[in-house]
């Protein structure tokens, strides 16, 4: 499975309210770098490191082989609306 789809699927299983925007950047060779913007109210009240840890924990196994590198942006739904919507 394509790494972006895999990452998205894994995260949706654990964070049902999540909204994910993805990109993948060529990483050289056969590797792809997955870019994820993860929007969920599960991040409410958590520090940036805690938010990223949540996602890294979900992707841990996949990061051993299928996903070579991941770029993360995490935020709550309210933050997404404030920053990215009119």
């Amino acid at each position: 499975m394509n790494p972006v789809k895999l990452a998205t699927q894994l995260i949706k299983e654990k964070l049902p309210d999540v909204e994910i925007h993805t990109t993948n950047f060529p990483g050289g060779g056969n590797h792809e770098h997955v870019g994820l913007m993860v929007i969920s109210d599960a991040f409410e009240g958590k520090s940036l490191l805690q938010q990223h840890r949540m996602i890294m924990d979900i992707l841990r196994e996949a990061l051993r082989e299928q996903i070579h590198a991941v770029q993360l942006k995490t935020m709550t739904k309210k933050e997404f609306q404030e920053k990215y919507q009119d």
Partner: protein
Amino acid sequence: MKEKIESLIKSNDVFLFMKGDKEQPMCRFSATVVSILNQLETDFETFNVLEDMEMREAVKQYANWPTYPQLYVKGEFVGGCDIIVEMFDKGELESVIKG
């Protein structure tokens, strides 16, 4: 391994586990963090995980973090590239390092 990792982390206020070294980073995420630390004109030490497979795995276990680079400030894990870029943009990284 754990003692080695801990002694490295304590060897300098700002310590970076990375791919490559300061002069020659070997991945663009590591290069980004090095560039940010250079912009802050902060003194820092690095360890090249590409040169030691055992350490490369052990450091991931220790931090409970699956990727590189990994930045420690005053003995505490701060984060990987994405976190560092965001903290730098907000001015938070400078406070954490110099505070």
